[in-house]
């Protein structure tokens, strides 16, 4: 789950990492100037899109708030605006901590050039970190790398708190970009991106604006003609691949998951029938934890309950297949022997 800047900075502040003084602000609120007004949208490239405004004079504040609340950035309009103190920037750096798939561990990345262009930079320096006690040495090396010997203590503290913040919040990424060195020689987190591990939500109270991204139902082509339902992420991906190969236009990726039952499947059907060009539904289930008879029951229920259900092309195999076959046969629902015959049969009914 991706956090908005103000939410991420709140977690940094809780972990004793310096952030600018700030307030959430709405129309009608007054604050002393100068300040920086920032749109809180869950996407990058906000600065370039005009989502950050420097306010020097008090009379400019209300028009700027009004403007930002209406400004759409990459399809997002903000619910929240953040007003921050204006910092006297001496230097902009980059610092992040993340789960590194390649080494199956935690890594800290640094770059001497922070700021908006960092995606295009190469030449990051990185450190693996396994425990908090390594933070002191890494902080020292960061000071050398940034060529800021006067900030050694600050960077040691920062690294230690950064690691703590990462672990305690079950984060998978925290990026401070830029990490600002002010004219007053303070290190402050200028902007922050943070991603938390949805799987860890059971041990946190998370109340953030963005909800966890849906991972099991993804629209690929809303104009497509064939919906796909499969179980297991791999099989769902493979079903989409095979539908493309067969010349169909798949609308979606849908993994109904292990142990899916009648209720989950009915919900899936209800969402799928909303695609406007939908002409066929491919069901490709290989039952392991899922039981094929549950799927069969759901199919029968869907046929009875959902109006305008396009033709279903069903391929089932695995656990409780015989029971499923019996249920479907009793209800006059055809079963196809494999995915290819299901795709082929679907192609026959599609007319665009």
């Amino acid at each position, binding site marked *: 789950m991706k956090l908005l800047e103000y939410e991420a900075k709140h977690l940094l502040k809780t972990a004793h990492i310096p952030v600018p003084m700030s307030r959430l602000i709405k129309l009608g609120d007054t604050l002393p100037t100068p300040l920086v007004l920032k749109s809180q949208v869950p996407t990058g490239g906000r600065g370039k899109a005009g989502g950050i405004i420097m306010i020097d004079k008090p009379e400019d504040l209300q028009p700027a708030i009004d403007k930002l609340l209406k400004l759409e950035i990459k399809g997002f309009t903000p619910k929240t605006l953040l007003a921050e103190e204006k910092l006297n920037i001496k230097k902009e750096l980059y610092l992040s901590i993340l789960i590194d798939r390649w080494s199956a561990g935690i890594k800290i990345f640094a770059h001497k050039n922070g700021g908006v262009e960092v995606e295009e930079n190469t030449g990051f320096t990185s450190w693996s970190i*396994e425990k908090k006690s390594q933070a002191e040495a890494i902080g020292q090396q960061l000071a050398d790398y940034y060529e800021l010997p006067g900030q050694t203590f600050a960077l040691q503290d920062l690294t230690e708190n950064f690691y703590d913040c990462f672990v305690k919040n079950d984060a998978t990424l925290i990026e401070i970009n830029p990490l600002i060195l002010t004219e007053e020689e303070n290190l402050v987190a200028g902007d922050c991106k943070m991603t938390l591990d949805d799987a860890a939500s059971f041990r946190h109270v998370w109340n953030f604006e963005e909800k966890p991204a849906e991972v099991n139902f993804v629209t690929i082509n809303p104009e497509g003609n064939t919906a796909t339902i499969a179980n297991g992420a*791999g099989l769902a991906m*493979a079903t989409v*691949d095979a539908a493309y190969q067969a010349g169909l236009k798949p609308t979606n*990726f849908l993994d109904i998951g292990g*142990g899916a039952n009648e209720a989950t499947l009915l919900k899936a059907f209800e969402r799928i029938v909303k695609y406007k060009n939908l002409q066929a539904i491919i069901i490709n289930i290989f039952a392991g934890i899922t039981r094929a008879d549950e799927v069969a029951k759901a199919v029968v229920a869907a046929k009875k309950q959902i109006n305008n259900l396009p033709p279903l092309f069903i391929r089932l195999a695995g*656990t409780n297949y015989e029971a499923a076959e019996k249920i479907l046969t009793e209800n006059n629902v055809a079963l196809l022997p494999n995915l290819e015959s299901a795709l082929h049969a679907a192609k026959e009914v599609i007319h665009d």
Partner: protein
Amino acid sequence: MTNLFEGKNVIVQGMTGAHGSFQTKAMLAAGTNVIAGVTPGKQGQEIEGVKVYDSIKAIQETNQVDITVICVPAPYAKAAILEAINAKIPLIIIITEGIPVHDMLAVNKALKGSQSTLLGPNSPGALLPGINKLGIIPANMSRRGNAAIVSRSGTLTYETMAGLTDKGIGQKYVIGIGGDIIHGMGYKECLELFENDEEVDQIILIGEIGGQDEIEAAHYIKGCVTKPVFAYIAGHHAPEGIQLGHAGAILGSALESADNKTKILAESGVKTAGSITELITFIASARG
């Protein structure tokens, strides 16, 4: 070296749960020697005639444990895995899906220098038809033989296995390494096992978008695998930056795409297929 997957005494952690008991029954039906189950606080219960204990230690007082299959819910998985590592169980198979990444990092730390090998998490386990069913891979769709499958996806594994069985091609190994970012055994360890097992004559690798495990596997195959390898990578039409089901199935860069992985595997001498059906056709025709 003794083959970890042929270990005799198997336990199930989380046996009293809905999935745990269902899969215990299926494992017993396939002939797996499930000697006991573990669920803290449920000692004295029986599942399918198998006794449940509070801890692994309680089982080890009277029995050696070779393999554990872990089906406990994600919030308790870390503790269950650490218990298995501490109990020095040689092979730990984690079926549980949705274990927090930081918990798996802690598990990885405990694993270093231990005597245990990990398979999973978010893995369907391993099936050696006629020898051992360790996890949830349906045995009735398999048949004993000489092919070996390694996969990141559960259902795609079953699909491939069933397709081979249909063609009369049996399997020595069917192994799911799991779809999570942080996991135990990878392609490399499985490829090494298959290469060194004289009974294996064809190797099948199934991958998906996200991460670089398949690329690492391709390099290993080029350098160290002499047996024929067949591969299919799922997700050729995956949108960038969006997770598809598995925690690890997210396209971070073009490097991690199905197209690129397929290309690199092909360059490493692997016969690559565009779909599971095509994959099975290739394997069958290679046998003649």
